[in-house]
Each structure stands twice: as C-alpha cells, then as structure tokens.
C-alpha cells in the first residue's frame, strides 16, 4: 500500500540521497551503445565552460552527461533541448567525446 504523505498534517521531506542501486541506467546504456565516446567523459567541464547555450542559460552539458550517468533521466529530458547544437564543445573535449552527437543520440533515444 502506498502512503499518500500529502494528506499528512505535517511536511515530509523527500529523500535527497541518490540511490545508485535503484537508478535507471537504461538511457545511459542505450546512448553509450550508440555513441561509445561518452564512456570517456571525465567530467572536466571544458565543454560547459565554452558552451554557447550555457553562457546565456542554465544549460550545462557536463552536468547533462552526469545526470544521464546517474539515471536522472527526467531532468535530462527536461533540459536536453536547450542545446543549440553549435558543436563548439567538441572542439575543446580533451577525451574526444563526440559531445554534439551524444546530445543528438540522447534526443533520439528519448523520442523512442
């Protein structure tokens, strides 16, 4: 039985911890199967530092990949279209992640 905490006469905070065992890694796995360069991301932030969209909005491509790896797929889906696909991030990536293609792949997998 699910308890509806919204009916309780006092507030209950949601668990702020990421439960990595329960995280849905299926999107990340599907994207990595289509573009394996994503496996090489080490989270340095070169991509997000030079990001055209990131300079004007709170879009953060490094964080996008991290959210994906942590199974926070709703947040990925919500933010992924803020990318303008200029491809500047690819120029800087020291690990050769095909960042623009990863974004396109995430969109493609999400659409299915």
């Amino acid at each position: 039985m699910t308890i509806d905490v919204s009916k309780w006469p006092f507030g209950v905070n949601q668990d702020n911890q990421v439960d990595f065992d329960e995280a849905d890694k299926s999107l990340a796995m599907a994207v990595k199967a289509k573009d394996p360069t994503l496996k090489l991301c080490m989270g340095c932030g070169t991509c997000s530092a030079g990001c055209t969209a990131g300079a004007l909005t709170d879009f953060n491509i490094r964080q996008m990949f991290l959210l994906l790896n942590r199974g926070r797929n709703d947040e990925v889906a919500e933010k992924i279209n803020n990318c303008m696909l200029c491809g500047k991030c690819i120029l800087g990536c020291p690990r050769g992640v095909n960042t623009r293609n990863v974004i396109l792949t995430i969109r493609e997998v999400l659409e299915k």
Partner: protein
Amino acid sequence: MANVTIIGGGVAGMAAAGVLTKRGHEVTLMERDSKLGGHVGKWYKVFPDITDASEIVDELKGDLNGVKIKTNADVKEIEKSGKKFKVNGTSADAVLIAAGFEPFDATLKEEYGYGIYDNVVTSLELDEMLKTGKLKTKDGKTPKSVGLVHCVGSRDEKVNNNYCSRVCCTNVIKSGIEIKEHYPGTDVFCFYMDVRAYGRGYEELYRKSQEECGVTFIRSRLSEANENADKTLLLRVEDTLAGKPMKINVDLLVLMVGMCPSVNAGSLKNSIGLETGDDRFFKTKNKHSANNESNIPGVFYAGATTGPKSIVESITDGRAAAAEIHSYLS
C-alpha cells in the same frame, strides 16, 4: 675495493646492489624477509603494462652475481665509528638504506569496517584474490559489484598522513581492468577525489578502464560503510560532481591502502642521528640535486624509504643511489 651494505632487498636495494657489484664493490644485501623482492615479490600483476611482478624481481636478481645476500636479517640500527659503519656486525664504508614502506593499517579507518565487516578487504588482499583466481566474497560467491576506495590512509589528517601515496590511483585503475577482464559481469565502482595517474602509460590505462572495460568513476570520498543483513555493504558518499549525497550497495569493498614508512625507520634514524620529514619518511639532503644523500656522509637512501614511489621509480632511484655511492667511495 670498498664494502657497501644495503638495508632492504626490495626492488630499490636489489637495483642498487646490481650496479654496485658491477662497479667492483663488495656488496652485502640485507633483507628482513626469508627471500628477496620486498613487496613487489609478493604481488601479482603491476601497471602500466600489467606484467607479472615476479618477472621484475627475477630480472633484478640476475644482476646480483657476487653480492653477499643475507636474508632474515632485520636491521634496526647502524653503528658509526669515524668514517666506518657497522650493520648487524658487518662493517661497511657506505650504507644504503632501502628499507621501503609498510602498507597502511586499514583498521585505523574504523568507519570503513575493515576487520569488522566480512566483505571489506585491502588492495593487497584483492591482489592475492586475483593471483589465485578467487575473487570471492566471504561466503564464496563471485561479487556482482566491487567498490574500490582511493586514498585509504593517504591525504588524511585523521590518520596523520597528509601525503599522497601516489601509486594507489593507478593501482585502482589496473585492478578495475583486471576485475572486468576476468569477471565481465561484475560492476566496478571507484570512489576518487581526483585521479592522479601521473606516469607514462598511466593516463592511457585510465582511458582504457573507462572506454574498453566500463569501470565507473564516482568523484567522492567514502564517508562510511555499513554492513547489511546479507553481508553486502551500504556505502555513503557524496557524488561531488552532482552535489548530492549518494548511497550505493556493493558485494565487496576494497580499500586501496597507502604507503607508510618502514617500521624500522624510527630506530634506524635514532641509532645514528638521521633526519626524517614531517611525513616520517627519511629526509634527503636536497630534494632536487641530492635526493639520495642523507645528513650523514656515507649513508644514502633509495626507493620508498624517502616517500611513496612506483616500482620503476624505486629501481631508477636505487641505481641513482648506487652511482652516488660509487662517486663517494672513489
């Protein structure tokens, strides 16, 4: 012909002995264990090329013709009279201290549960498991997930070790690759603050672990481990890139223990007035240009006795010390 006594038959001491005997010196190599090789002699595969550690030891042994080897010779003090030294009764014109290191005692990090929980082991025990082909939890099952914890006993004021042990990061990477290659169904999670893969071929190994082997790196420092009823371990870390606390369960937790000074470093130091640094490793005369010399003429250092070193660095350091000793004696 001069007499040189080397304290420590690990890779640094053996490398130095090999050079010194070729230069015509009478070398006595003292090893506290029953056989030569030190820590490397006990290990399985080593980075960056994942070769057998025994091959390295065998190669160094091949250079020891003419060296007087004394095993089971634990050296706790050096005697000095004039320009001469005496080590366990053997007189010497120069002494090389290559006393190496001791692995960090993981029980000191009680919150990680080593020695308390069933499935918490150290990197040395993992190496033994991989060597014998038995990567198992205590109840004999192949773990479905393994957590590798960086910086155990390193960069940690709580255990009085502020220094970095330097090799653990690359050891994590190498271990991750080995686990994934032998047990492809096992997930490997590494908990790191930063990856210090500094040597030639190390960064490439880091890439390989991610690209080819699918090892997962989570930027964090383990806060605590708790044992579940089924003997798996609940880990609490902060995923610092995401800025959120994270919990994750693993079947086996491996603590990558750092390097501490040799247990004999203190008594050797006190016996003739040598100097150690804040990190308790021996202090060299100059960190740049006299990194094998001590404050006492005739006493030299090589290998991890002056701080954590990789195998190749210890061997190179041993040979550099041998060259310094040769110059000192001629």
